[in-house]
Each structure stands twice: as C-alpha cells, then as structure tokens.
C-alpha cells in the first residue's frame, strides 16, 4: 500500500499541463498580429495586493506581453504570444501565486450583455446632453424671448434634438418595431410614437410656425426612460456576473486510457461506454461510470444530498458530478456524456423552467393594460378636436401629442426598475444577489418554503458531535494529523484540539480510502476508518459507540485504545431561528431531501419544520414542488445541490447558497452568501416591501395621469407644463423607491460569529465552504514528509 499510485501521478501532471494548454488555446481570443488574449476568472482576488501579486507574477511568464486584473469582474486578462509561451500554464501559475482560477469563455453570453449595457449608456449620455442643452434654450423661450430669438433657439434646439432623439431612441424604436411585427403592443410603441410625432410637428413649427415646439419634451422623455432601462439592465448584469464568477463548470473532457495504458485527453462527447478513464483526486467525475480500480473516498453531496463521504471500491457505480476526494481512480464509462446524470438533470431543469417563463412580470402586465388606453385616449382627442375645431388638424395633432407625452410612462417606466434596483442593492449589502427583478416579484407572493437538507439547512460538511475516549494529548496528535488531509471527515476532526504546537509527527502518509498514518514519539499512529485504525490498536474489536452521528473518524496510537470522533452534519446555527421566524410570517415549511429518513427527520425535528420527505430523486423533488403549486401554493425552494436544480427551476421562486453547486446557483433566482440562513427572511421582507413600493409607484404615476390627462385632452398642456409634470412625477417615484433602503434595517446585523453584511461585496463572493479539495492541500502534506 503506497501513498498514491506513483506511476500515474507524473503522467497525470504532464497530461494536465498539455490539457491546460489545449483548453487555454481553445478559449483564447485572437487579437491579430499573433497576439492572443486569455481571460481567467479569479474569484479570490479582492484587494490591491492581490492585483499586484497577479499582475507582477503573471507578466514574468514566457510570451506574456500584458496582464491586467479587473477587480469588479474578478477576471484577469492576459495578452500573450503562443509561439513564445510554450505550454501556456496560466492556471498553474496563478495557483502557484495562491489563486484558484478557471478559464473564462468568451463565447458565453456575458460579453454580449456587456455590449448592451455600454450601448444603453451611450444613448443615455447623448440623451442627457441633448436634454440639458435643449431645456436651457427652452427655458429662455418660456421666459419670454422675442420672436426672432425664439425662432433661432427653436432651430438650434431642433438641430440638437433631432439627431439626438433618433440616435438615443434606438432601443425603443427597435423594441416597438419588434412588437408591432408580432402584432403586439408594448410600452415602447406609444413612446416611439410620441417621440417621433413630437419631433415631426416641432420641425414644422420651428421652420414655419409661430407656436412652441416639443423638442425638449422628446429628449427629456428619452432621457428619463433610458435611466429606467439602464438601471434595469445594470441590476441583471451585476447579479449575473457575480454568479458567473462563482461558477466552476463540469470538466469538458477526460483523460482516457488506451489499451496500452497511455492516457490522452479527449472531449466528453467522444467517450464511449466501455472506455477507461482516469480521475485524479480533487476532480469531479465527468460521466456516469463504474470504478475499475483504485481506492478513494467520494463526496456525493451535490448529487444526492448525502453528506457522508462514501468509500470508493471497485465495482461501485457512480454518477457524473461526484467529487473524487483522496486517491486516483480508474473508471469504466457506463453511458455517453449526453445521457449522464448531469445531462438528465439539465433536461429536467429546462422543462421545469419553461413552465415558469410563462409568468408575466408586473411591468409587462401594466404595459399590456396601459398601452391600448394611451393610444385610444390620444386618438380620441385628435378626432374630438378635429370635429370641435372643424378640421384644424394642426391644433388637433398638438393636443394628441400632448396627450401622448403626458401619458408616456416616465414614472411608470421607472416605477418597477428603480424600486427593484434599490431593493437589489439593499439585499446585496446583506449578502443576497438577486438575479432578476422577476425573482423579487415572485418572492413577495411566496407562502410556502421548501428546504433541501444537506448544504442548505445543514452546512454540508461534518462537524464533531462527540468524542469518545483518549487523552488531550492524543486528541492533539489526531488534530495535527487531520490538519494534513483534505478529506472532509479529517477536516472536522482537526477541530478536536486547537493547541497542537508542541506535537511533532513524522513520516506522514495519506492512504487513499483508509486514512492517515504517521510516527509520533517513535510509535505508529493512525487516523481514519475504524477497521483500519483498530489493526494497530490494543483492543482490536472495540465496539463503535451508539450515537446518532452519521459518520466517525477513529484514531489510535500503536498498542493504545481507540479514540472515536463521532461526526454529524450540523445544522446551520440559525436554522431553527429562521424557520421559527418564517412560520411567524405565515409560511408553511417543508423539507425535500435525497438523504435517508433518519437524518432528515432529525433535522425537521430540530428546526421545527412541519413536513419532511426523504430519499427523493431529482424528479421526485420536482413533482412534489409541482404538486404544491397545483394545490395553489406559491413555493419558495431553498436548495443547493445538483439534485435540487430541477426543483429550483420548478418552484415559483428559488434561493441557493453561494456555497452550492454551479448548476444550483444558475437555476436559482436569488443566491445568498454567508454561513447563515438569516438572509431568507430578510430577502422576503425586502421583496414584500418592494412589491408595496412598486404598487405605490404605480398609484403615484397613475394618479398623476388622472390629473394631467384631462388637462392635456382639453388642450391646456403647454410644453412647459409637460416638462414640469414629467420631471416631478419621475422624481417622486425615485424618492419613494429610495425608502426601500430603510427596510429591515434592524436585521442588517447578523448574529455574531458571522460575516458582517457590509463585507458582502468583497470576500463573501467566494463560496463560504472550503472549495473542492485541490492540490492546494498537497504541498503541506509533502512538506511534513
């Protein structure tokens, strides 16, 4: 029995290097002149020292021309020349600097979304410039400029406003055109109509007429509307990039072993049933497979919600997505990648989220009611005035434009996005990232909370429940040994004794699937599985103590007694408090778990959750959620694992902890960081307050219309009044929305021992549980040898 099979390790490293190079080349972005740009996601970068370390460290690599770290997106852009670089080892180089990194794929949607934001911002800048200048000129006209100056000012206004409105209005014209082509009406149709009609009439007026123009109205209309549009975009974008940063995708390929035992890297799609693949310690299993050889421990918590590490032995069948913890494994592929467990989960999830996308957002519902009314009212006033004045089309058109501009939903367009942006900011400070406004709307309607157990109600990592036997000194040795391992059970045992300074152990080796062995004071010591540890202990058949712990780690000094550390997956400290609070808020609560009945019932009893169902598959969870919805419930699902993803998508609204699986985070509407669940009631409270604020905003906006529209229809609205009404109603709506910052203030301070909410923007973006064991732990182990 050796530490880890020595022949495969150097092989694996060379393979990893080549594999890294291939992946890097594939993801790079060609800048021309033989220069490539590679973007890497570095979630742990958070201060100026990190920036400097990364930029200085990376720029010394061969072939690298320029390195720029972006702290906002937590990405590093490297410009390099492939011919000078040899094997481009950016990820290992970053790992050597102490940063875990992954490649950022340019093909993904994120870069396109950046462009949309930038275009909106340019439109906003142009509209702002035009609005300010035109308004300045208009004020002098309103103040009573003489006829000649008025004409001059109107012409200058037109010169600014016409190109500016045509350019800055593009987002609205495009969307209005798209809606019309589909025989729909959205709010952008009256907006475009108002802007274009006002421009047309004003051009005529500036050239030939004696009356006032609407130039300032059309540009300031666009300016206010673009603010709302940009805020809406910004909120989605920031939450999405925050979630992208956290993501670590499934492996895109695997090391396949040929018949002669040679390993080569192949894409997942090329794997056939019966192929042999090699999975190193710390890697995820890429496809459903059977273990052919090797000893290790497996973490299946993301797959089936079981928190206890499973011993890997030849013959065991495992799903894609399982994390291989301690030793290299050779696997036999059972199914092609597109029929693996992960692929099935994704299919289920897509089906579930399709039913959800049919829910109409409140702003769209309002627009659906409002847009026809706007058209009918302004059309009717045009016809009415034509009849009244006996065919004075010019006056009639002016009235119709006044109606369109007055009804144009500046306040209405700001009512939803501004409230949601303020709420999202408020939640961001408490460590909750809101993926889109729709999630907030649905959260405010939720009346049932369903939890997953492992990783959601519990921390998803074992903790010491009790210690049986042994002296303090033995505990210290065990803790010292445990600190050298990356196995979750060992990490838990490491907390047995914090004072380990005086302890000296030597010849440490980690035996995959068994535990750690070392020499202490000239005697052999072991930490690991009971059967293996008892081989060196005095009493070889020591009975395991009867507790309700879920797993144990044993320790013994050669010839000594067995010390047993009983471990269990502990509940998050505030789980019971949060459940009590939710029930106080009138929520029905439940657990849907993939774990066995015992631990699930225990968790339900400890937290006071009403119903608990255990041993569920991902599709069982989905169907339970769908049953609840069919019974008229609005379900909030809180879960983290791969097995929760379809249920997360099927629920009305979902939350996932940032420490969960990528796919869980991707399918949840809200993601919360930090170690507690306290974010859940805070998010609900803020969502409800947001709903109230949005409704108040609508009342304000509609009340303003009730008042202003009759004036417009009767022909009393001049451009001055329109400008005043438009600005004041928008400011009122913004001011009302800012009150959301005060919601749930008293809850902003989380229980002691947990990270302060204001740190949310910084460190909390990292997963709060330790990341998948990587090579990071290995150097320490070797240093002790």
């Amino acid at each position, binding site marked *: 029995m050796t530490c880890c099979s020595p022949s495969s390790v150097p092989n694996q490293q060379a393979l990893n290097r080549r594999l890294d190079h291939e992946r890097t080349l594939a993801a790079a972005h060609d800048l021309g002149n033989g220069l490539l740009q590679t973007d890497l996601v570095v979630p742990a970068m958070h201060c*100026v020292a990190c920036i400097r370390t990364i930029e200085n460290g990376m720029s010394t690599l061969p072939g690298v021309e320029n390195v720029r770290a972006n702290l*906002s997106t937590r990405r590093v852009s490297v410009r390099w020349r492939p011919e000078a670089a040899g094997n481009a080892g950016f990820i290992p180089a970053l790992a050597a600097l102490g940063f875990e990194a992954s490649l950022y794929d340019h093909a993904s949607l994120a870069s396109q979304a950046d462009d949309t934001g930038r275009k909106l911002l340019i439109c906003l*800048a142009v509209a702002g410039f035009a609005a300010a200048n035109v308004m300045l000129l208009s004020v002098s006209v309103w103040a009573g400029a003489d006829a000649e100056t008025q004409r001059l000012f109107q012409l*200058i206004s037109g010169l600014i406003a016409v190109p500016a409105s045509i350019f800055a209005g593009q987002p609205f014209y495009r969307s209005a055109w798209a809606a019309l082509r589909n025989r729909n009406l959205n709010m952008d149709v009256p907006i475009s109509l108002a802007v274009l009609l006002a421009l047309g009439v004003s051009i005529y007026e500036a050239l030939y007429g004696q009356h006032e123009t609407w130039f300032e109205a059309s540009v300031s209309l666009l300016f206010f509307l673009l603010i709302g549009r940009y805020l809406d975009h910004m909120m989605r974008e920031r939450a999405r990039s925050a979630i992208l940063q956290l993501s670590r995708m499934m492996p895109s390929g695997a090391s396949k072993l040929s018949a002669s035992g040679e390993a080569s890297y192949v894409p997942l799609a090329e794997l056939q049933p019966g192929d042999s693949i090699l999975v190193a310690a710390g890697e995820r299993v890429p496809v459903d497979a059977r273990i052919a050889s090797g000893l290790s421990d497996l973490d299946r918590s993301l797959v089936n919600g079981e928190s206890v590490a499973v011993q890997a032995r030849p013959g065991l069948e495992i799903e894609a997505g399982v994390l291989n913890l301690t030793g290299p494994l050779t696997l036999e592929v059972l199914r092609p990648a597109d029929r693996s467990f992960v692929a099935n989960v994704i299919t289920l999830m897509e089906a579930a989220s399709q039913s959800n996308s049919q829910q109409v957002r409140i702003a769209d519902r309002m627009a659906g009611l409002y847009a026809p009314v706007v058209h009918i009212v302004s059309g009717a006033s045009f016809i009415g005035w034509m009849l009244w004045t006996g065919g004075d089309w010019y006056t009639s058109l002016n009235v119709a434009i006044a109606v369109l501009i007055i009804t144009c939903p500046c306040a209405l367009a700001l009512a939803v996005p501004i409230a949601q942006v303020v709420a999202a900011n408020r939640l961001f400070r408490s460590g909750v990232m809101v993926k889109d406004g729709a999630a907030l709307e649905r959260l405010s309607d939720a009346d049932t909370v369903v939890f997953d157990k492992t990783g959601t109600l519990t921390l998803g990592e074992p903790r010491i429940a009790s210690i049986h036997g042994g002296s303090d000194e033995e505990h210290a040795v065990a803790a010292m040994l445990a600190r050298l391992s990356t196995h979750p059970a060992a990490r838990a045992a490491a907390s047995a004794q914090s004072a380990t300074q005086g302890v000296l152990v030597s010849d440490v080796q980690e035996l995959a699937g068994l535990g750690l062995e070392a020499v202490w004071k000239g005697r052999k010591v072991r930490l690991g599985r009971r059967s293996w540890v008892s081989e060196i202990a005095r009493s070889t058949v020591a009975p395991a103590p009867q507790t309700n712990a879920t797993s144990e780690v044993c320790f013994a000094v050669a010839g000594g007694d067995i010390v047993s550390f009983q471990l269990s997956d502990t509940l998050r400290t505030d789980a019971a408090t949060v459940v009590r609070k939710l029930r106080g808020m009138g929520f029905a609560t439940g657990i849907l778990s993939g774990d066995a009945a015992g631990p699930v019932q225990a968790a339900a009893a400890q937290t006071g959750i009403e119903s608990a169902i255990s041993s569920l598959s991902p599709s069982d969870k989905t169907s339970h959620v769908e049953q609840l919805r069919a019974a008229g419930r609005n379900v909030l699902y809180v879960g983290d694992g791969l097995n929760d993803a379809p249920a997360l998508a099927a629920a009305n609204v979902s939350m996932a902890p940032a420490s969960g699986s990528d796919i869980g985070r991707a399918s949840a509407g809200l993601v919360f960081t930090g170690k507690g669940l306290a974010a859940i009631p805070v998010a609900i409270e803020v969502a409800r307050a947001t709903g109230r604020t949005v409704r108040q905003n609508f009342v304000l906006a509609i009340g303003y219309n009730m008042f202003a529209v009759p004036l417009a229809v009767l022909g009393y609205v001049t451009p001055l009044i329109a400008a005043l009404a438009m600005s004041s109603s928008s400011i009122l709506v913004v001011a009302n929305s800012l009150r959301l910052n005060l919601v749930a203030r008293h809850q902003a301070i989380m229980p002691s021992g947990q990270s302060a909410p204001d740190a949310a923007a910084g460190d909390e973006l990292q997963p709060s549980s330790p990341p998948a064991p990587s090579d990071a732990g290995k150097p320490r182990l070797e240093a002790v040898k």
Partner: protein
Amino acid sequence: MSHLVFLIPIALGLGALGLVAFIWSLRNGQYDDLDGAAERILDDD
C-alpha cells in the same frame, strides 16, 4: 443678441466636449473596473 452668437456655440461646444470625453472614456474601458480603480490608487508603485 450679438453676444448670443458667441455664448451659444461655446455652451454647446463645452457640452459636446463633455459628451465626447465620456464616450471616449467609456469605449476606452475606463469604467470597466471601478472597484479596481478604487484599490489601485493605494498602490505605491
């Protein structure tokens, strides 16, 4: 009236200058990393 001939072009020119400067800085990527800019100012090198 005659002073308007100077003042209006100056006012518009300054406004346009600001607009052009903003669009240039936006395209130049100066708003891409606001958090990083806030930290980098602390760097002595």
